[in-house]
């Protein structure tokens, strides 16, 4: 048998054979990092220790290039921002107090690389992974969202990736019974060889149910439960292909994992019953780096050490080596710390849910993480050196060489149409472009209303979930990122992403409270990418402080590039807001006749980086729209007040595609037309008609107000100093979108253009069943 042929590399052997060559480079460790491990241990690492350090010190787990900058999120926080924060950065996910004894936890994470290699399973396990982060906080997962970036819609490989990713997300999420309440889909050639698949999950808990990943209390038991451990996704890289660890010939394990949503569903219910019974002291999910990560993080966050017997791990494949067990990324597993007197109760619950469970070891007072295998010690380390005090790099930064030229190349000089027919033609081109087209082809494959608490979902600006069935208390979540803006100016781009997500939450009537982010960038070894990253974090943390919404957690994904070509910096920012009663939510489209339409905010000539520049002129250059955080705050305050007083029949934010896109989406939402006139806007803001329609100036929202509330609404705007212009009225009879003097388009025609794009390119929908 293979096992007996394997030479077990024990701590004792490591001491005796300091000269033994170790293939650390194949594991992704640098010479310096390997030297540091030897220094920490005072000897060479065993092969098991080397496996642990290599995965935990990887960029993905250690944040070694980004850590230096991420600290800013923690520094730029005021006491007022902390007021609602129950758990901040550093745990599995942030937790926010939403009132009435309820708390909400949410986080967005990337699963980019696996989703390119194996789109279906990559995207599916991306959902599974983020859901387990939420369970690990003690919460019941209640909704998911996905932020997707694909390559050119016209490329054949994009079809492979889109079909696989969308089918994978719908398969896992739908089987799990979680509504997918929104997200983003963007097509751009920069993502051709490196699509982005980010997944967000939100969970709900009572304050007293909060759980943390801290292994405390010597004598407590360390328990692994859920799926068995197999050879899935070992190292997440071709790490073990190098045949370093065994003498029995090369073992080639695939870096992808296969998920089982039905096992995860059982795991959710099982965990919640364990929490309810008070049977768990601490809990951690197993994601990247598997048992290596869970044991070292639990121990490092606690006050003592941990002793683990690796032979106790239940295996799906008995030929796995100790190193493979330590690194396996098999899905649907959790690790808990359980007091010995509660073990019986714990096993009764896992037994009832048919969840396999094994006791791996105990929490100790030694301050060491010790792991044995076949009776011999193969790991003996200070867990903090593995999980917390990894290397931190201050990588060189350099402003991109071509940035000045790029920023000088403004879209302002591009020809803008002056007459109605030309404007109408460009409007049709815009809504018929992949990024402004209807993405129902994708989102219709997801359950949106399962669980019965969805108050808003796609195509509204934010998703909204009812948290408390008695009072109607709920939360709204929106995510945004505009890679084109970030390419032009990463600092402003990140702030604009935050501003838009914040505004998207505000238009529903919710008050923005907290932030999660997933920062997708190219290789940190490229100084220009590192500069973009530094600018992004600095800009984002500054804007979070200005808007008083703290970052609660998130994820950094680097090395998103094909060859030398990095993706546009894509900082996905998610904002969570709270609404006292979801019955007072504001939809994104109007449903009634004769409502007054008001444009809130001011329009400037800001077409750089816009959808108009991209679609009409194939242009990217200049400076993104100005960031107006004070105006965003005033706007959000107005919207919350207007919603709570019932003054708003609809509210829809202006972003990509400007007022033109917002008007089209407004009439298409419920098929109720509108008549608008631009004269007042043109006069007050000093812009031309094309600019009024296509500019992407921020801090703007289109609202529909019932006539009888008109006086109160205008008074509210004046009192809060939010510029408002009556732009038009809704019209249920005409079936038209009319911009007076410029264009009159049939709603049916607009719908056909907008809905036709994705089906034409992608063909028939995938079914969730196949892989």
């Amino acid at each position, binding site marked *: 048998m293979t096992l007996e042929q394997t030479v077990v590399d024990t701590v004792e052997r490591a001491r005796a054979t300091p000269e033994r060559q170790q293939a650390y480079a194949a594991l992704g460790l640098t010479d310096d990092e390997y030297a540091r491990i030897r220094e920490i241990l005072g000897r060479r690492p065993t092969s098991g220790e080397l496996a642990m350090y290599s995965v935990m010190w990887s960029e993905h787990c250690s944040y070694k290039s980004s850590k230096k900058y991420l600290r800013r999120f923690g520094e730029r926080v005021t006491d007022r921002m902390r007021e609602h924060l129950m758990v901040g950065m550093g745990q599995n996910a942030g937790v926010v107090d939403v009132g009435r004894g309820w708390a909400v936890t949410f986080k967005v994470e990337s699963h980019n690389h696996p989703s390119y290699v194996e789109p279906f*399973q990559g995207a599916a396990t991306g959902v599974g992974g983020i859901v387990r982060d939420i369970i690990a906080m003690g919460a019941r997962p209640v909704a998911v969202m996905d932020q997707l970036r694909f390559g050119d819609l016209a490329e054949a490989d994009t079809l492979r990736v889109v079909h696989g990713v969308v089918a994978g997300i719908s398969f896992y999420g739908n089987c799990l019974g979680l509504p997918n309440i929104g997200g983003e889909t963007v097509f751009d050639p920069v993502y051709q060889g490196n699509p982005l698949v980010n997944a967000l999950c939100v969970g709900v808990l009572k304050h007293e149910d909060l759980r943390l990943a801290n292994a405390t209390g010597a004598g407590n038991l360390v328990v692994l439960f859920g799926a068995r451990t197999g050879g899935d996704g070992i190292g997440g890289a071709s790490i073990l292909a190098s045949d370093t660890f065994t003498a029995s010939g090369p073992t080639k394990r*695939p870096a992808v994992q*296969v998920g*089982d949503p039905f096992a995860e569903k059982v795991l959710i219910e099982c965990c919640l019953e364990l929490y309810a019974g008070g049977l768990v002291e601490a809990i951690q999910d197993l994601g990247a780096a598997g048992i290596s990560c869970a044991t070292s993080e639990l121990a490092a966050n606690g006050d003592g050490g941990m002793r683990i017997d690796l032979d106790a791990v239940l295996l799906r494949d008995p030929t796995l080596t100790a190193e493979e067990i330590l690194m396996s990324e*098999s899905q649907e597993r959790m690790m808990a710390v359980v007091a010995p007197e509660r073990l019986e109760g714990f096993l009764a619950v896992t037994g009832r849910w*048919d969840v396999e469970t094994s006791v791996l070891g105990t929490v100790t007072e030694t301050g060491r993480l010790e792991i044995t295998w076949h009776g011999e010690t193969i790991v003996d380390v200070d867990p903090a050196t593995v999980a917390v005090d990894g290397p931190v790099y201050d990588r060189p930064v350099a402003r991109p060489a071509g940035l000045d030229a790029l920023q000088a190349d403004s879209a302002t000089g591009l020809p803008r149409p002056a007459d109605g027919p030309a404007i109408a033609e460009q409007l049709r081109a815009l809504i018929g472009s992949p990024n402004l087209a209807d993405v129902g082809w994708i989102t219709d494959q997801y359950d949106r209303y399962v669980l019965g608490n969805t108050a808003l979902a796609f195509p509204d600006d934010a998703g909204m979930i009812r948290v408390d069935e008695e009072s109607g208390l709920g939360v709204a979540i929106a995510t945004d990122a505009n890679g084109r803006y970030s390419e032009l100016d990463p600092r402003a781009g990140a702030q604009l992403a935050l501003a838009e997500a914040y505004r998207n939450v505000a238009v529903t009537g919710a008050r923005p409270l907290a932030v999660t982010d997933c920062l997708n960038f190219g290789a940190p070894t490229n100084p220009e990418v590192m500069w973009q990253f530094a600018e992004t974090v600095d800009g984002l943390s500054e804007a979070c402080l200005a808007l008083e919404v703290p970052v609660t957690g998130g994820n950094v994904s680097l090395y998103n590039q094909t060859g030398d070509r990095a993706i546009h910096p894509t900082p996905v920012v998610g904002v969570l807001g709270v609404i006292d009663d979801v019955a007072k939510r504001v939809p994104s489209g109007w449903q009634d006749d004769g409502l007054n339409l008001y444009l809130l905010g001011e329009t400037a000539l800001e077409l750089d980086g816009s959808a108009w520049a991209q679609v009409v002129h194939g242009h990217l250059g200049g400076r993104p729209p100005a960031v107006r955080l004070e105006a965003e705050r005033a706007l959000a305050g107005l919207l919350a007040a207007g919603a709570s007083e019932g003054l708003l029949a609809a509210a829809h934010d202006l972003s990509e595609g400007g007022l033109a896109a917002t008007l089209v989406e407004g009439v298409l939402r419920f098929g109720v037309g509108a008549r608008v006139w631009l004269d007042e806007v043109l006069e007050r803001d000093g812009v031309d008609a094309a600019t009024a329609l296509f500019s992407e100036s921020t801090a703007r929202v289109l609202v529909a107000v019932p006539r009888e509330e008109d006086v109160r609404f205008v008074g509210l705007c004046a009192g809060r100093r939010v510029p408002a212009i009556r732009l038009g009225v809704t019209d249920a009879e005409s079936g038209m979108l009319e911009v007076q003097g410029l264009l009159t388009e049939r709603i049916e025609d607009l719908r056909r253009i907008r809905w036709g794009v994705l089906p034409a390119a992608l063909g028939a929908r995938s079914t969730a069943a196949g892989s």
Partner: protein
Amino acid sequence: MPVIVVEVMPKAELLDPQGKAVAGALGRLGKDRFSAVRVGKRFELTVDGPVDEAALADAREVAEALLANGVIEDVVRVSEEVA
């Protein structure tokens, strides 16, 4: 008409949720002698003409390129079905 059979199995080291579900059901039926189940796929390609080396080569190509997802599955058999 002759038939070429292609069989595809999930890679041995990857989780096979379907096989796991069947194994669980066997246990509930009391069939304890079967300790594990793995579920694969069988394709029957009806051949227009004789099954010669060229036809088998074609079938192998199709099996690797289309019928199996090489990232998570292996082609374990490509051969003529003998009646």
